[in-house]
């Protein structure tokens, strides 16, 4: 970072922006410690009962584990599919690589609701609705474009001479990839994993189309919960999720440098 003095007006603007971004937290955190039966702000009494209530609610706990497993599987698959695809597009440069690249990321341009409806129609025919594999496939539709984009960028900024040097020193292609390319892509890989995980874990719209009484993800369960009863449990859960997300971000920052991962 440059150490240039920042204009006072800019400081005020930045402070206001932060306030705006943090405003939901200012409301949600107090409500999560509410002693009331309904969401009111400010709460009339305080307690931690709603945190306890989350863990007593079997549906919520089940949905949490579903979401966690789903995000983990989706992240793993996104990397497993995205990495070879990015390598093929960037390094092997097939005819029309750019067109293919745009095509593969085009899904992001569609409104999620359109995507959800399309997936619903197709998956219904194969009996994938409200199944774990169905959810995985649906989430991959949105995470893969991200994975491909971030990994392609990471790969194309690598100096190719370093890989060539490894080859001249006697490393066969797979060893070059494992010992040189992959470690040099480290921050890109961690960034991709974090991005895919969070996108999958937070995904509501697609999941709404794909879930049912048999299976629900955490955001979907929360959505239904809010529809039915307006108690502060959801606020408590939100705070836990914010803490979880923060933990993920911190881990990424510690191991790769957040700026390096996302800005480059």
């Amino acid at each position, binding site marked *: 970072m440059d150490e240039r003095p920042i204009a006072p007006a800019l400081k005020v603007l930045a402070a206001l922006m932060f306030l705006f971004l943090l405003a939901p937290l200012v409301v949600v955190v107090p409500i999560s410690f509410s002693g009331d039966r309904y969401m009111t702000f400010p709460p009339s009494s305080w307690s931690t009962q709603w945190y306890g209530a989350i863990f007593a609610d079997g549906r919520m706990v089940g949905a949490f584990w579903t979401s966690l497993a789903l995000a983990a599987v989706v992240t793993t698959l996104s990397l497993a599919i995205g990495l070879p695809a990015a390598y093929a597009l960037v390094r092997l440069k097939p005819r029309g690589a750019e067109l293919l690249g745009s095509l593969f990321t085009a899904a992001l341009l569609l409104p999620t609701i359109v995507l959800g409806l399309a997936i619903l129609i197709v998956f219904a025919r194969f009996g994938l609705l409200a199944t774990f594999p169905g959810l995985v496939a649906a989430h991959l539709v949105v995470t893969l474009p991200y994975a491909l984009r971030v990994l392609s960028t990471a790969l194309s900024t690598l*100096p190719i*001479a*370093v890989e*060539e*040097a*490894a*080859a*001249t*020193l*006697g*490393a*066969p*292609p797979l*060893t*070059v990839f494992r*010992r*040189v390319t992959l*470690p*040099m892509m*480290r921050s890109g890989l961690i960034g991709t994993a974090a991005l895919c995980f969070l996108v999958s874990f937070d995904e509501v719209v697609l999941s709404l189309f794909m879930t049912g009484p048999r299976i629900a993800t955490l955001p979907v369960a929360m959505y239904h919960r809010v529809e039915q009863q307006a108690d502060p449990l959801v606020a408590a859960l939100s705070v836990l999720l914010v803490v979880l997300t923060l933990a993920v971000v911190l881990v990424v920052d510690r191991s790769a440098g957040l700026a390096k991962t996302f800005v480059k």
Partner: protein
Amino acid sequence: MTAGTGYLSLSGLTKRYGEFAAVDGLDLDVPRGELVAFLGPSGCGKTTSLRMIAGLVPATAGRIVVGGRELTEVPTHRRDMGLVFQSYALFPHMSVAKNVAFGLEMRRVSRGEIAARVREAIALVHLTGKEEHRPGQLSGGQQQRVALARALVIRPSILLLDEPLSNLDAKLRDEMRNEIRDIQRRLGITAIFVTHDQGEALTMCDKVAVMNAGRLEQTGTPVELYEHPRTAFVAGFVGRTNRLKAVARDGALELAGQRLAAPSGISGTVEVMIRPHRVALAADAAVVAPGHHGVAGTVARATFAGDILQYDVDVAGQIVSVEAATRGGERVLEPGRAVMLSWRPQDLFVYASAR
């Protein structure tokens, strides 16, 4: 030179990109233990040739043989060559020691031997004490030394150097130049040195292969190239030279109204070249030594540069640069002064004009 006699032997080596021939029928033999420069302007095919030898670019046609082993179709990682890149190309995520050890690990050398050879290679390039540093913590010169150690430690059949000095500043460049040459001699390793800098090529290398537009113009020792350039391109690229137009007719050369003895077999408009410091300048028309060429001219500009005295002399409309080392006490002639230029006939290079 007949193809196939060298330790490294290239025959008919060609690289085409569509219609464009980046390298066109390169024939070259490099004896064991020699340092040979590929010299030429950018885009002449020297780096492409090096990359074909390393196997990083597949050859369109031709053969690459090293020590009797045909390598043309062998993939890079089985060619056993050490390549030093212009950009160093070190592994940024590994320490200096790990960088150097990489090639040995690929060769499944025992751990104890790796440690010993890495230590030795790092000492060879004067980097002892920097083993645990990352490349990012080293200066450009140090990084290039690591790259050199990494390439040498595997005891490659051939050491390939791709403009290894061009990212270094002038002082470091001179230092590394001598160091690379010393190490190459001491280890008796066969090496190819790609450069666009004729100074580097002449001062470092046993032989120089001058390339232009994908073709080999001439191969020879630095002295051969400088004293007997076979083409106008070589004469112009290696060392400085005057380029003049003349007409060859009936075994004589007409230059500035004078008839000079000319090599036979050339006629029509020709290009003649002479190096500035091989021309003698006299204020007196009478002092042309017997057997020397002499032409009259007028001083157009005189420059006193301390250790040399430079004249631009107008010879019937063409400018000839003349240079002489100063010895003290010379008189600087003013522009407009009539002078006599003379040179030994063998210092004048005559080439059929390209159109």
